[in-house]
């Protein structure tokens, strides 16, 4: 029963505030022999698991570290040598690999916020009923998204555990806090990120 994160999206669809709370850990570390029974591919300039999910390592997980050395994209963080080359050499085995999901970067969050903005609009447009609002609750098997659009067009989005009912009170409270502490700040210009 947890709140994962909160986003505030402006009228134009840009992300003006975001914060993460207790995001669950998904890291798994395991020792592998040669040849590697997991197929890796480069996705978005990072190494991800393409095939061969096992022991908690899932498809789409990123390679985070090799023998404790952190990996940055497709190269080692310390000496910038290629990880794939290292994984291809038999003398380096047995090898310990750490996989997990990585946190969204700020850029990805901005992208997802504007994506939600258009999904919200599509939700109204494709409605089979007259005068529908946009998406208020979106359910997936791992999380639930609650959204409230104010009359002025600002969207407050809360990501929670899927078992939580609609958190209307929290969304309302967020709007109050926004009006009190963001809008009443004389140095704040509207639709700009809240600092």
């Amino acid at each position: 029963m947890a709140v994962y994160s909160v986003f505030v999206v402006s009228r134009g669809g840009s992300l003006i505030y975001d914060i993460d709370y207790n995001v669950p850990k998904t890291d798994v570390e395991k020792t592998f022999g040669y040849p590697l029974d997991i197929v890796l591919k480069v996705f978005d300039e990072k190494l991800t698991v393409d095939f061969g999910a096992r022991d908690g390592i899932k498809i789409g997980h990123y390679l985070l570290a090799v023998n404790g050395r952190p990996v940055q994209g497709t190269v080692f963080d310390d000496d910038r040598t290629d990880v794939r080359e290292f994984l291809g050499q038999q003398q380096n085995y047995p090898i310990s690999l750490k996989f997990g999901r990585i946190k969204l970067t700020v850029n990805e969050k901005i992208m997802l916020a504007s994506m939600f903005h258009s999904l919200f609009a599509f939700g109204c447009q494709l409605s089979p009923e007259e005068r529908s609002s946009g998406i208020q609750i979106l359910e997936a098997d791992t999380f639930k998204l609650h959204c409230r659009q104010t009359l002025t067009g600002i969207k407050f989005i809360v990501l929670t555990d899927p078992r939580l009912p609609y958190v209307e009170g929290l969304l309302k409270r967020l709007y109050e806090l926004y009006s009190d502490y963001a809008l009443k700040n004389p140095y704040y210009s509207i639709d700009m990120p809240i600092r």
Partner: protein
Amino acid sequence: MIFNLYIFDRLGTCVLYAEWNRKKPANLPKDEEFQNMYGMLFSLRSFVKRLSPLDCKDGFLNYQTSKYKLHYYETPSGLKLVMNTSTDVGDIRETLRQLYGQIYVEYVVKNPLCPLDKPITSDFFKDKLETFIKALPFY
């Protein structure tokens, strides 16, 4: 209350559209509406996959607005069933799964005269679908 049902194949062709209690007529031509719907589902799927704090198994399940609720079920072969209902309807994944298993598979896949990538024209299938939907408790 059930408003309408869309079935898309894995390439995004709308193979079936049916409506029951839809009050607002579409202000777009049908094929554009199907494209919009498919586009939205496609984005929703990738949106959910990226935003999820944990690994998704089924991914996107449903969303709800002030007036309707959209339920989504995708089979591993990529067939997508989308049903719009009123907001008081709970989780109907099992119903959509039955609709796939007992109606679509039985009367489309097992019918050699039904091409799988074209809109379904079989009247027999449509009759069966109509009976299935009208027998649902939340129809």
